[in-house]
């Protein structure tokens, strides 16, 4: 079959089972979009309002399904608008292929119109990237891009295709099936045995897991191991949804705004089994305590993560599900009665501390009350967040049931991530998304309401509107003598009228009755619905482990501001 580069690209996308992609056209991808249109029987291309939204949508698609998300953009500003989205995916190990057009090869390097070195720009935020300067290498490069994106620790790959390569002709041999990920070498038997031996000697074991468990599909093995080890589990932000929130052994997220019980349990443990985590500073606090308190086993698919931030006594590289299954085969049932008694006391202390921290401010809604009311009717929803206080409240409070139902920008902390990601997640799964956002984050990419309305995405958007950039304000309160530099928004923006302007609907709420009525309406709609919730500007996210702090420094109550 003789095809143009553009048609070949569309054929490869079809061959790699990409039935849904996201993008925004432009001068240097006209040929590519034309080819996609001609393959619209196999590939649906969703037009977002902005390339960043398209990248987040491809990311949300990938997070919700585990499949490779695909985004297409033009050269120059189209390509640079993808960068935040690509970096977001990179930091959270999300499989993605970004395809950009570029000026014809003969114009490269001349600062031509809409020319940018996107390969150079994205080198630090992709697993790998390519510029394809000859049609002969195009098919294999695209296939390799998919393979890299989904092999080992997943991540984004960018392929830059100059316009003349899109228009050149070459022979194309279709392949019958998508490329398979490169197999990961299994962990060595010796290391699995050593891990089992260490686990057997532990008296107070604690399992700390992250997003790697979700990527590996290792949730069941994880829960089985916790039972076998008679150990509690806590997680990083990225680990949320890997195990049900109400799992009796689950103590919640740990770290800067994590649950007191999980952080305290980790601190009291004599052995920590870390699974698919990378010990981000936000999750660990003061990393010195890792050297003092406990023995550490670190299992991860990425060899470079072992000993990177925290040196482990034993590092086990390999696919987590395989490693855990093999560990389960040789580890006998453990019992830690005294440890579990201690954990119950920690949970009790946590409940007492959080009860004391409850604040009621007339005319506003408590964030947890909002989340509880939403969760009551959310059912089998996908929870998506933006970044800031609302993100932490959601991470602490949302009752999650199944893996891949909590989508959040963990590593990069991208405000404006949520709406695009919610669109991608809905179109991928058909499940209604609930987006928790703030008046700061929502303002960053709310133009994607246009796309959400066009695509009839029934997303329920909960704006925790406190009139301030609350997370930064909280730091200013604690560490800057309450000097609120550049964090007081107090905009005149009416988010309900904004929603209506985009063809969606919404409601302002400042009490629980109004919230209930708004939720009734929102969940009966098959269109986006914005609920603008009044939240007090001094509602803090607690607990808080100050940067570089340890469990003794956890703030669980802040005086009235």
């Amino acid at each position, binding site marked *: 079959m003789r095809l143009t580069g553009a048609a070949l690209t569309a054929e490869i996308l079809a061959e790699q089972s990409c039935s849904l992609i996201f993008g925004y056209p432009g001068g240097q991808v006209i040929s590519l979009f034309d080819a996609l249109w001609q393959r619209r029987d196999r590939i649906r291309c969703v037009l977002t309002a902005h390339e960043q939204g398209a990248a987040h949508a491809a990311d949300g698609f990938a997070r919700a399904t585990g499949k490779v998300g695909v985004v297409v953009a033009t050269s120059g500003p189209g390509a640079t608008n993808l960068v935040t989205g690509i970096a977001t995916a990179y930091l959270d190990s999300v499989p993605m292929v970004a395809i950009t057009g570029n000026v014809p090869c003969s114009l490269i390097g001349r600062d031509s119109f809409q020319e940018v070195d996107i*390969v150079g720009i994205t*080198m630090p935020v992709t697993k*790998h990237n390519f510029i394809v300067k000859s049609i002969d290498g195009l098919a294999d490069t695209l296939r390799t891009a998919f393979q*890299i994106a989904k092999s080992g620790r997943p991540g984004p790959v960018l392929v830059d295709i100059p316009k003349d390569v899109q228009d050149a002709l070459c022979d194309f041999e279709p392949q019958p099936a998508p490329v398979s990920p490169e197999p990961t070498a299994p962990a060595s038997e010796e290391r699995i045995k050593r891990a089992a031996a260490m686990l057997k000697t532990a008296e107070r074991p604690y399992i700390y897991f992250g997003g790697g468990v979700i990527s590996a599909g290792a949730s069941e093995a994880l829960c089985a191991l916790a039972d076998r080890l008679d150990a509690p589990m806590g997680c990083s932000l990225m680990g949320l949804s890997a195990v049900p929130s109400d799992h009796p052994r689950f103590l919640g997220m740990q770290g800067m705004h994590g649950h007191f019980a999980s952080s305290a349990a980790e601190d009291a443990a004599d052995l920590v089994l870390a699974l698919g985590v990378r010990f981000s500073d936000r999750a660990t606090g003061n990393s010195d305590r890792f050297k003092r308190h406990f023995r550490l086993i670190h299992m991860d698919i990425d*060899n*470079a993560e*072992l*000993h990177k931030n925290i040196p482990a006594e034993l590092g086990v590289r390999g696919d987590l599900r395989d490693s855990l299954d093999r560990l389960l085969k040789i580890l006998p049932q453990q019992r830690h009665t005294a440890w579990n008694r201690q954990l119950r006391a920690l949970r009790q202390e946590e409940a007492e501390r959080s009860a004391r921290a409850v604040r009621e401010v007339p005319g506003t809604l408590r964030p947890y009350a909002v989340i509880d009311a939403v969760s009551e009717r959310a059912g089998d929803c996908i929870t998506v967040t933006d970044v800031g206080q609302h993100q932490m409240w959601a991470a602490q409070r949302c009752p999650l049931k199944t893996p891949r139902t909590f989508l959040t920008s963990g590593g990069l902390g991208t405000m404006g991530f949520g709406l695009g990601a919610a669109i991608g997640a809905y179109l991928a799964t058909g499940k209604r998304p609930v987006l928790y956002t703030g008046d700061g984050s929502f303002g960053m990419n709310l133009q994607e309401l246009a796309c959400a309305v066009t695509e009839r995405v029934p997303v329920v958007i909960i704006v925790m509107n406190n009139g301030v950039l609350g997370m930064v304000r909280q730091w200013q309160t604690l560490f800057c003598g309450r000097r609120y530099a550049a964090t007081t928004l107090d905009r005149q923006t009416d988010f309900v009228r904004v929603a209506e302007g985009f063809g969606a609907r919404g409601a302002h709420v400042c009490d629980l009755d109004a919230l209930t009525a708004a939720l009734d309406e929102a969940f009966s709609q098959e269109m986006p619905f914005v609920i603008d919730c009044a939240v007090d500007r001094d509602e803090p996210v607690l607990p808080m482990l100050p940067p570089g702090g340890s469990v003794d420094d956890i703030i669980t109550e802040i005086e009235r501001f």
Partner: protein
Amino acid sequence: MANAKKYVIGVLVANISGVLSRVSGMFTRRGFNIDSLTVGETESPGFSRITIAFHGDDDIKEKIIRQLDKLHDVKEVEVLEPGDTVIRELLLIKVRNKAEYRQDIMSAVEIFRSKIVDYSAASLVCELTGESSKIDAFIDLMKPFDIMEMCRTGIVAIERGDNCLKTEK
């Protein structure tokens, strides 16, 4: 750094454009310092070989190797132990050609087994290969003789015996 040691690693990479950026970019991005980096073709046209020298402790060395191993274009990484490795560097140094100390320069050139590769009325250029310490010593000797300019290649290194960096990963 308390336990800083000098390390030399050999890195076999795909011979394609951008690969040097990827390797050096990883060092910059993660805050690792490079003392010297050289790159050249190998016996196989599909591969280039990069020799990198850096200072650090064992932990940093491990991190560098693990990060290099992750790069798609990197095929093989090996730490070259000084005892088992031939390490060489090339120096070209131009000094002012003055009668008053010409004989001293000639003696140094002979003792160091250097070569004079350019000679003019005003200047002369010496070429020297050897381990970095030998190059350093020669430069020190030349300092009183008015060094006009110099350049050194940075080190290349190859393991003694029949051990090789393999082209298949």
